């Protein structure tokens, strides 16, 4: 019944549905684009963003972080991974005569720090080496080739993603087991991999309280705050974008209100007949609300489909992975959008429905 009433004035229904569609598309695709933007930003800044880097402070007696200090840190930071590293530098010479200067990092928990393009970073690096992708290309190194450091040979187990050179661990880099740098007594840096930027800040403060006083700096602690600022900016951006989407939905809601009001005014006589032949007020109310809900669902559905397309496009462009749009963090906006469309439609149907149902049939029939 409600369905056929909508079908009667197809143009009007289509226009109202279009209003809803625009509203839904606005709110969904803006929401999804924000998620895509966040993902893209954090994939580029993410690793530095969540790290706390600890090195020897200016008032330290030792030239590095001692094993005792590391144990102490580990006691303080129980949930997150603590990764001590020893660093040096070296020059590698390849068989083709190319030379490359690079930093050498001795680390055990390689998987916590490095993403590889080829091979897999071991949780515990005991033998073998990882090397920057770019450097490997320059030197013509392949998987399984030996590299030499300090008289020891290591087989190349994997190539490090060169994009990571954005961070402080960047540049040409050779990663070997920490035992390869056993001539250095202390660790140069300790990286704590926190779950997010906020956690990193919190860990940084905790370590600072533990090791340093106002006068003396035993350990230099750096919780990167750059990512936090970026995160804050993204939050503001997404609020603003959702605000714009919200306004579009309000506009769409007003459009539905108008359409429902028009259609009930137009059908005043008809509703009068319904009431005259004994259709109850609640039944008239329900009929008109059903019409509104159907219209909202229809518009919402089309809107969701269009938004999914837009969202996937945004993800493809920003993160290179269109399927990321299907992830709950972004697809939840589709659910919100649809829910809002139905809700807004029903709400804007309430007044016309109430008005139509309470019109006295004798008045309605007269004109």
């Amino acid at each position, binding site marked *: *019944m409600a369905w*056929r*009433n909508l*079908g*009667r004035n197809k143009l009007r229904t289509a226009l109202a549905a279009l209003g809803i569609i625009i509203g839904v598309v606005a709110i969904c695709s803006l929401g999804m684009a924000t998620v895509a933007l966040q993902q893209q930003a954090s994939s580029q800044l993410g690793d530095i963003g969540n790290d706390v880097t600890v090195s020897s402070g200016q008032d330290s007696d030792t030239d590095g972080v001692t094993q005792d200090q590391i144990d102490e840190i580990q006691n303080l930071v129980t949930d997150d991974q603590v990764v001590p590293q020893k660093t040096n530098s070296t020059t590698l010479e390849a068989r083709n005569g190319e030379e490359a200067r690079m930093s050498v990092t001795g680390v055990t928990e390689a998987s916590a720090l490095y993403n590889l393009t080829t091979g897999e970073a071991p949780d515990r690096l005991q033998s073998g080496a990882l090397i920057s992708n770019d450097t490997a290309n320059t030197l013509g190194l392949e998987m399984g080739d030996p590299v030499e450091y300090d008289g020891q040979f290591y087989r190349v187990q994997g190539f490090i993603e060169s994009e990571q050179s954005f961070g402080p661990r960047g540049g040409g880099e050779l990663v070997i087991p920490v035992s390869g740098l056993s001539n250095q007594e202390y660790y140069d840096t300790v990286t704590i991999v926190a779950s997010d930027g906020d956690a990193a800040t919190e860990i940084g403060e905790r370590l600072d309280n533990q090791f340093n006083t106002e006068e003396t700096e035993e350990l230099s602690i750096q919780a990167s705050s750059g990512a936090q600022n970026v995160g804050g900016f993204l939050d503001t951006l997404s609020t603003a974008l959702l605000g714009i989407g919200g306004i579009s939905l309000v506009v769409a809601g007003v459009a539905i209100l108008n359409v429902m009001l028009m259609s009930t005014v137009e059908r005043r*006589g*008809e509703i009068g*007949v*319904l*009431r*005259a*032949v*004994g*259709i*109850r*007020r609640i*039944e008239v109310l329900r009929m008109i609300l059903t019409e509104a809900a159907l219209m909202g669902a229809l518009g919402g559905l089309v809107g969701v489909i269009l938004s999914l397309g837009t969202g996937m496009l945004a993800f493809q462009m920003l993160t290179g992975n269109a399927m990321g749009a299907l992830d709950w963090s972004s697809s939840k906006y589709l659910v919100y959008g649809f829910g809002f469309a139905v809700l807004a439609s029903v709400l804007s149907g309430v007044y016309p429905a109430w008005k139509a149902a309470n019109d*006295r*049939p*004798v008045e309605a*029939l007269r004109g």
Partner: protein
Amino acid sequence: MAKSMSVIELDDVVKRYQSGEETIEALKYVDFSAERGEMVTVIGPSGSGKSTMLNMIGLLDNPTEGSIRLDGRDVTDFTEDELTEERRTGIGFVFQDFHLLPMLTATENVELPSMWDTSVDRHDRAVELLRRVGLGDRLEHTPGQLSGGQQQRVAIARSLINEPDILLADEPTGNLDQDTGETILTELTRLKEDENVAIVSVTHDEQMLDYTDSTVRIVDGVIQEVSRE
């Protein structure tokens, strides 16, 4: 006939409307009654109060004074919801301009008054009524595909779907040509006997007087004359 037979009774009914500063007295102490199987025609010039009277009989409006009895029960002070219930079960309406819903088929239009009631399935009765008014071959047509006379016959079928006691007709032949009007009146005459229903109609149309059992003439809200054939 004895008064207890009356299915609808208006007793000293007064209806006043407020129109701006003025109070209009549309009905002045009107007495009226109709019985099952009887066709009563209310006739009078426009503005005489005959439509107001039909609204009273059809329980579409409450009187200012006086009382209304439906099947012996006093319904004067019923609420809108109670009146809706009485209309649903006891009264059928036929309007001058048919008032069929354009998106529904003939059968669905006939079923309309019971469409929201899931406890009964009136489909068979709807088809049966349409056959009886001669539209057995137009069951799935929408009003747009039917002539005026056919639409009015659909409306008559609709008014009878809930087996009412009273059928109210407001200018039932007003939008129809002479011949079609006569067919409709013949139809109504037959149905009032078959269905044992009281038919009250309001009209300008003098030809209706040939079919009626009793005529009520109303002028300026006062009943001038009641004549029985």
